[in-house]
C-alpha cells in the first residue's frame, strides 16, 4: 500500500481515543436526531434495514429527513435523488476548505475521508486543524465515529424509537450548542466577526425571501467574498 510510506505518529488506539473525545459533542447531538429520523422513517413505512442502508450509503442527516418526507408524500426516486444533490451541494465548499489542510495527501485517503464530511465533522475538524494540534488520522476518526453513532441511532429509532420520550434533557439543543461554540472558536479577529455577522444577515434575508435550501451556500459565498474584499481593502489602505 502507498500509505505505508507515511509515518503514523501515534498508535491507532490513541488516535481513536482522541478522535472519540473530540467527536462526543457530535455524537450527543446525533442521538436524538438519529432516533427521530428512525421513528419518522418507520412511520413512513420504511423497514428498519432500509434505514440502516440509507445511513450507510447516504451519511447526510438533512437529506435523509427530506428523503423520508418525500417518500411519505409519494415522490419519485429521481426527484428524491435530485433534491439530495441540491441539499448536499454545500459540502463542496467544506471539502474545498478542508483541502488546505490535506494538501498532498494520498487520493486513497482523501476518498475515504470525503465520505464522512458533514456540517458537524467539518466544523469540528476545521477548528482543530486551525488550532494546529490536529492531523488527518484524528480527523478521519472523528468522521467515522460520528458515522457509526449515526447509523446506530437511526437504526435504533426505526426499531424502538417510539419508546423514547421527546425532548428529554434538552438534548435537541446539543448540535445548536455545538455550532455556537464552534462559531466562537472561529472568531479570531475582526474580519471573522464581520464575515460571521454578514453571513447571519444574508442567510436570514435569503431564507425569508427565497424558497429552498440555497441560503446556506448562497450566504456563505456572499459573506466570505465580501469579507475577503474588505480584508484586502483594509490591507492595502494600511
Amino acid at each position, binding site marked *: 500500500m502507498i500509505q505505508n510510506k507515511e509515518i503514523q505518529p501515534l498508535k491507532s488506539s490513541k488516535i481513536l481515543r482522541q478522535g472519540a473525545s473530540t467527536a462526543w459533542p457530535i455524537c450527543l447531538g446525533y442521538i436524538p436526531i438519529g432516533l427521530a429520523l428512525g421513528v419518522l422513517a418507520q412511520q413512513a413505512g420504511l423497514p428498519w434495514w432500509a434505514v440502516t442502508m440509507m445511513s450507510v450509503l447516504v451519511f447526510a442527516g438533512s437529506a435523509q429527513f427530506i428523503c423520508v418526507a418525500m*417518500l411519505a408524500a409519494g415522490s419519485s426516486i429521481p426527484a428524491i435523488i435530485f433534491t439530495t444533490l441540491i441539499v448536499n451541494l454545500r459540502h463542496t465548499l467544506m471539502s474545498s476548505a478542508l483541502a488546505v489542510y490535506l494538501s498532498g495527501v494520498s487520493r486513497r485517503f482523501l476518498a475515504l475521508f470525503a465520505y464522512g464530511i458533514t456540517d458537524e465533522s*467539518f466544523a469540528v475538524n476545521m477548528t482543530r486543524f486551525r488550532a494546529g494540534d490536529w492531523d488527518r488520522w484524528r480527523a478521519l476518526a472523528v468522521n467515522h465515529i460520528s458515522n457509526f453513532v449515526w447509523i446506530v441511532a437511526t437504526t435504533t429509532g426505526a426499531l424502538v424509537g417510539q419508546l423514547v420520550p421527546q425532548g428529554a434533557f434538552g438534548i435537541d439543543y446539543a448540535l445548536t450548542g455545538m455550532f455556537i461554540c464552534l462559531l466562537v472558536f472561529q472568531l479570531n479577529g475582526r474580519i471573522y466577526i464581520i464575515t460571521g455577522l454578514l453571513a447571519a444577515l444574508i442567510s436570514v434575508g435569503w431564507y425569508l425571501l427565497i424558497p429552498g435550501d440555497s441560503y446556506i451556500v448562497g450566504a456563505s459565498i456572499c459573506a466570505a467574498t465580501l469579507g475577503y474584499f474588505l480584508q484586502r481593502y483594509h490591507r492595502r489602505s494600511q
Partner: protein
Amino acid sequence: MNFSDYLLLFGGMGLVTYLPRTLPLLYLAHKQLPQWLIDWLGLIPVAILSALLAPSLLTTVADRSFSLGKPELLVAIPTLIFALKTRSLGGTVLVGMLLYWLAGFFI
C-alpha cells in the same frame, strides 16, 4: 418498495452526496492553491457556521417568517456568552442543553 428499489434510491442519493464531498478535495489537495483562494477559504467556516445557525435561531420553520422570541434564540444568548468566557466545547453543549431543557418548563 422492495430491496432493489431501496438500493437504487439510496445508491443514487449516496452518489450525489459523495461526489460534492470528494471531488473538490481530490482536485484541490494536489494543487498549489493561490493565496487569494486560501484567504477566501479561510473565511468559509465562519460564514457557513453563521449561515447554518442564524436562520435556525431567527426564523420560524413552519411559515418561514422572522421571529425574535424563539426559545432557541433566548437560550443561544447565555450559551454564546458561556462559550466566549470558557471556550469549552463540551461545557457549552451541556450548558445549552440544560438551559433549553429548563426553558421548556417556562416558555
